[in-house]
């Protein structure tokens, strides 16, 4: 009753890979997981918890969602509208700092994974 956002039950899909979006989300309570479903199988890329956000690429370009996000257990998630976000950074560009930092960490994380992948080769793919 007192929580904010919307409640999703275990396994419920919040964002579906391939759909277009116009918002990002912030986890208020519980956990969600990012899943790649491009090869007819689910590959869990990462798990996100309270205060983590996802879907941020939709704020900057009208592109398709690159992964599916689903609830792990009961999760409560708040939507950040593109319009509200852009209005905010137009007035205060530092509002985007945390999003930029997180995207930077994710690029760093992916670069590390790519390096390992190139060393071990496709045979060791998960």
């Amino acid at each position: 009753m007192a929580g904010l956002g919307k409640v999703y039950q275990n396994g419920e899909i919040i964002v579906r890979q391939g759909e277009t979006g116009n918002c990002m989300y912030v986890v208020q309570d519980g956990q969600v997981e990012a899943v790649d479903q491009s090869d007819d199988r689910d590959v869990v890329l990462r798990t996100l918890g309270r205060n983590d956000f996802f879907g941020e690429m939709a704020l900057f370009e009208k592109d398709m969602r690159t992964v599916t996000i689903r609830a792990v257990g009961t999760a409560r998630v708040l939507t950040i509208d593109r319009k509200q976000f852009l209005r905010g950074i137009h007035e205060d560009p530092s509002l985007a700092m945390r999003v930029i930092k997180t995207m930077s960490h994710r690029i760093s994380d992916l670069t590390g994974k790519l390096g390992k992948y190139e060393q071990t080769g496709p045979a060791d793919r998960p």
Partner: protein
Amino acid sequence: MRGIRRRAASGWTDLARPDGHSLQDGSRIAVIGGGPAGSMFSYFLLNMAESIDLDLNIDIYEPRHFRHRGPAGCNHCGGIVSESLLQRLATEGIHLPSHVVQRGMESYTLHMDVGTVQLSAPGLEKRIAAVYRGNGPRESEPTELISFDGYLQQMAGERGARLIHRMATGLERTADHVTIRCADGHSDTYELAVVATGINSHFVDLLCGPMVPIRRPEKTTTFICEFHLGRPLIEEILGDSMHVFLLDIPGLEFAALIPKGDFVTLCMLGDEIDDALIEHFFAAEEFRQCFPGGVVPPRACHCLPRINVSTARYPFDDRIVLIGDSGTTRLFKDGLGAAYRTAKAAARTVAFHGVSARDFEQYYWPLCRAIDVDNRIGKFVFSVSGLIQKMRFTRRAVFRMTATEQAGDSARKRMSEVLWDIFSGSAPYREILGRTLHPVYIGSLLWNLVAGNLQPPRQQAPRAESRGH
């Protein structure tokens, strides 16, 4: 702006030495007032200072303890965190925990004499937070920290700000320092004084005189009271919806019932709310019908706080800046959002530019001016809204158009969006006005004016109930 330049040319030039007005490692800042504006300023400034390896010391002067129940620990406000503020705080990484949020709101219920209609948030998401500014009304049960103001103060403290439970009563300034004096005789010297006392404090009056060219904002009286109904009954009769009233009562702009934990907050805004206006509203059928048996429960706690309806001229000087309600706020809505915006703009100015009047004029004043200009548009929006409230045939048109939109599945719900943004304060008034000038909106309103008045209002949706003549 021309006025500011003239003032700078005459009064400020003696003090305004840009090289001597930036903060250094070890600089001390006094924040007078530990409400949301003061706490958020401290939190953001310490974050920004850390990012540029600047070591600052912040003292927050706040005599009240927000863990107290009743007026002693309250900041006298309806306690709504708007959709836009909630989203900005979440983007900043500031999470409002469920023990601070008394209730998440997913809709507005609009009550008029011609009917009642519910406006739902997209995806039925709880996008608006009802909070207590203190630790709950008088007569509420003692609990752990539940106050919004206390929570933000705690965040600032964890970031490194020092909380001083003293009442600041005096301010003296030289070219290099500001001295803060307290009621108990304590005094201390700082490089910057940030005034975040709100509009109901006498501290701002100290700044309005020959010493500093600041003129305080204009004010009006509001009415806020709490009813104790208990959680189950609130759930049953009000739900997770904020109930707003657009009634033909002279002097009343807006009234809202805000369900919280065991209490419901009534907030009345208008032109100098007084006892007669309060009694008039309490007698209104639309209000009474929100309670079981049509009987308004006794008031557990009430106050008549002042709110500002204009921007201070000018909310800064050398080594002094006014933020939150002390400086400016949005007309009638989203005061907490304006506190956040002014606090952060002032923190950015102080961290990255300096603390002279010129710095504040260049980097802080544009935001205050933008809010002020938008408020002027807001006054026009509220005057049109007042006209609609006065005429029954226009009320019918608004009701019919809203109810039809809510019953349908059209992507654009133009009247609902306008009402939602007026009630929530989530969009600038300029944008709301722009939407009402759209030809499709005007055409639809004209059609509903005709259709709503040619035939008796009928039930449009499960959540829309029309009333006959």
